[in-house]
């Protein structure tokens, strides 16, 4: 199967607000798919729709050939989806270690933790230093590492990563994007990123959102960056 995830004509309401107005997305296996667009255009809602937090009123979501639409969030996630939310949402009262343990879907307190940790420490060597600290005491960059690491505690086929570089310094952001590049070998990634130039090397395909609809899609990031009119219209960044 070529496509790991397919969203087919999804219409999503939050309360009485009509947020996603019939979007269709294909996430090919082993590739990085970017969701671009301004704040409030429906990118995060799309992720939450995949997770079943806002189930679609109409339309289908197919993951690994299985329909997800009627499943509950934890059942969907257990099919092999890791989630790195925007604003990190780490558990501040727990330590880094406890955050990671809570995120493991299988296994006990010890169990397979070590094997996972080796992988995570390879990716984020810094984490060894603050592994035993309370998560609320971490800096923004450290919290973001933890948020990504949480999604790596399980064997996930798909990672949903929402604005990972938000609020990070340019250097930290660059390091994080490099780390995401390494993850590409292990999982398919659906990535929301405001700073789309920074992830232009990472992305294989992209979708541009505007007002709850997809207004443009493509698989050539260089072309997109060169298309200044489109960038100005939908991505709301100044052209340097």
């Amino acid at each position, binding site marked *: 199967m070529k496509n790991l995830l397919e969203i087919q004509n999804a219409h999503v309401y939050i309360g009485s607000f009509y947020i996603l107005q019939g979007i269709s997305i294909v996430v090919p296996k082993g590739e990085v798919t970017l969701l671009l667009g301004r704040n409030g255009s429906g990118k995060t809602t799309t992720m939450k729709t995949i*997770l079943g*937090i806002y189930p679609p009123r109409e339309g289908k979501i197919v993951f690994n050939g299985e329909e997800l639409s009627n499943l*509950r*969030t*934890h059942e969907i*996630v*257990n099919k092999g989806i890791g*989630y790195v*939310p925007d604003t990190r*949402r780490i*558990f*501040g*009262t*727990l330590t880094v270690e*406890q*955050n990671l*343990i*809570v*995120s493991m*879907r299988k296994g*006990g*307190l010890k169990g397979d933790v*070590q094997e996972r*940790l080796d992988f995570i*420490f390879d990716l984020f060597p810094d984490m*060894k230093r603050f*592994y*035993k600290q*309370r998560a609320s005491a971490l800096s923004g960059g450290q919290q973001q590492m933890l948020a990504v690491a*949480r999604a790596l505690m*399980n064997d996930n086929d798909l990672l949903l990563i929402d604005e990972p570089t938000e609020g990070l310094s340019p250097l930290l952001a660059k390091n994080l994007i490099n780390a995401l590049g390494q993850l590409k070998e292990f999982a398919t990634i659906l990535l929301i990123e405001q700073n789309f130039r920074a992830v232009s090397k990472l992305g294989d395909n992209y979708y541009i959102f505007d007002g709850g609809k997809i207004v443009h899609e493509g698989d050539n990031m260089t072309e997109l960056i060169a298309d200044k009119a489109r960038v100005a219209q939908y991505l709301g960044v100044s052209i340097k």
Partner: protein
Amino acid sequence: MTMQRKRFSPRDYLEENPQARKILRIALVIALIIIGVLSVLAAINIYSWDGFVVKASKSLVNGLALSMLLFLMVSGFFLIFGLCDVINFAHGAFFMLGGFMGFTIYLATEAIFLDPALPFYFIFGANQFAMSVTAFIVSALGATAVMALIGGGIEFFTIRRLYGNPIAQILLTVGFMFIITQIAEIFWGPSQFSYFIIPNSQINYFFISGIFDFGGGLQFAVYRIFLIFLGLAVAGLMFIGFRKTRIGLQIQAGIEDKEMVEALGTDIRKLFTIVFMLGAGLAGLSGAVLVPWIGANSGHGLTYLIYAFVIVVVGGAHYGRFEGTFFGALVVGLSIQITSYFIPFLEDIIVFIIMAIILIIKPGGLTGHA
């Protein structure tokens, strides 16, 4: 992974943990207030010094014992509120019913042990102490289990349908409070009747009924001292459980961010049911072990529900701080007992006076934000 282990130093620990520093500060404040209150009372009672020492030590011991048990009950209330966002108005009724369960199970166990047709009769023989200890353990665990099942059942069959609808939850749990209270009244009569183990026990014996006598009227019921340690032990177990077990960590994480816990693959509804069972079980346990002291009484439901509210508000647990329940329980338990010895006419209202003062000067309670 190898990490360098440093030698433990309390000073470094406090510097690295602002949380621990804060808790220590609050504990100190409470201790100072208690010492202050007692000094004022000492000044008033200066002409009957002996009487003062007796009353002060008794009120401290009783206050600590009550505080520990209130803490167990309220931590159940807090868990349900923290994780499930349900204000469980039936919690006091769980506590009250736990008392009756403890009482009934104790007497039933004792009756079984005393039945000559059953093998237990030969195991215990005339060893009343062993029989009573066993019956007590069975009654405490039994009341916990029964209340956990009732609490879990109520969550599973009714409250589960009402998440996200706080008004309906309040009406429902208030309804359960009345239903449970009424059921208790049908079986055991109205609140004029209190049931204690001693006159009702067939052998008229309970394993801790003695007093520590330090002379000069300085006598403490052993059971109340035992309750202090029992409360501390259960609180310690809970503390370890929350830090060292996966489910404990999941509950803590869920109190912070339910949606995220679910998005990481935990069945949050199952966790809600478990927390309801745990909360109701803790109410049942504290109700059951308090029977030898305060008795089982159908009127306790409302009284202890109100204590639970006061403890949450005073401690600041409504701001999501678990340790708030501990300090709140300490303040409520001690103030009730101190006033009952020194200013008896204030005993029934002291907790509300304290609550009003705290709400005015520190709306976030002892541990919450101002």
